[in-house]
């Protein structure tokens, strides 16, 4: 089995880990973390496909590789937005729970008026 295939299988497992974490973890921050893990698995598959397209003296197909650079930067922007959203929710409600149940009564500061 050659190196690209090995990394491809590794990527499949990474996506699996990420998906499991995304479903199981109740905290939004852990979900973002798991989602990033899943994303890196997808990127790795893309890099494997690029590597398999090595030709014309290039180590890999430059088109998917360029796509990956774009993807990594956009993934960072999306994570930053997600983190900003959850921090705002925390400032507003004192909790970062996604649950609809009242749960262990989050402390609600009187922030409604100023927001």
């Amino acid at each position, binding site marked *: 089995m050659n190196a690209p295939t090995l990394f491809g299988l590794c990527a499949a497992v990474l996506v699996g880990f990420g998906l499991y974490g995304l479903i199981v973890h109740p905290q939004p921050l852990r979900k973002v973390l798991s989602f990033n893990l899943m994303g*890196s698995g997808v990127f790795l598959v893309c890099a494997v496909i690029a590597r398999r397209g090595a030709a014309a003296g290039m180590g890999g*197909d430059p088109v998917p590789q360029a796509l990956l650079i774009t993807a990594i930067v956009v993934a960072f922007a999306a994570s930053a937005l997600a983190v900003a959203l959850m921090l705002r929710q925390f400032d507003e409600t004192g909790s970062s729970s996604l649950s609809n149940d009242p749960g262990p009564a989050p402390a609600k500061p009187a922030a409604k008026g100023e927001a």
Partner: protein
Amino acid sequence: MSIALHLALIALLLALAFWTVVARETFAAVAGFVSYGLLLTLAWVALSAVDVALTEAAIGAGLTGALLIGATSRLRKTEAAARAERPGRATRVLAAIVATAVAAAIAACVLLLPDPGPSLAPEVAQNLASTGVGNPITAVLMSFRAMDTMLEAIVLLFGLIGIWSLASDRYWGGRPGLAPVVEPNGILAYLARVLPPIGLVVGIYILWVGADYPGGKFQGGTVLAAMWLLLLMSGLHDAPAVSQRWVRLALVAGPAVFILVGVLGVFVAGAFLGYPEGLAKPLIIVIEVALLPSLAVTLTLLLMGPPQRSESSP
């Protein structure tokens, strides 16, 4: 790298990924994720994607790691409550089954990939000379698929607008982050005095060398952003109010130049983002130089989050 090294790398990657998912403490999970990101750069190198490795080290592991560590320390109080919400065994088993099925499907796809793989590399090699740059990735990013790169720069800007919109009314247009606390003799202040000049040179060098070798504006811009972040975190320099004109100008200058060159292409080369014969390289350099400061400011402010203090706050 030999196959044994690859196997060791894969084993480490999988172990760290597993840790990131199962660790009890969020902070431990984030620490695992940052090391995972750094190791992943080795995987990109093993797959001959050095440009991607640079981006991953700078943004995937570096900036994302800093972002998540910051969020973890802010949300530390919510950890205990979240543990009570942990789903029951049935959900976890179901999630494991779904995750395994998806992983198996992807693994099957990887094993069934056509051999030899389809590739655009010959086409890129054929047309590389017309762009005047020597690095095929830069040629794809700035010429063959320049539209993607332009939209990416704009997406970053939209992300930042989204984050700023989360500011509460009274801090709208104010300064992001906490008020700076300077510890003049601390190690952070020392590094913030010593490193930025070096980082500035490295960042600009990475941009310049990107024309012919691995590197480019995103990697260079991230190094510049890291230097500014170091200054901000050390407290030697306060974050600017986001309503300041120079901040807004710096943010839109890069994408605006990109769009302008694109529109120019309609008249001179007959296509949006088309470059006239012989002028491709100068135009690419104009766009990259304009994008570098914009990207550095955008990435820094993405990490700093929404405004949290009024403009006049010290």
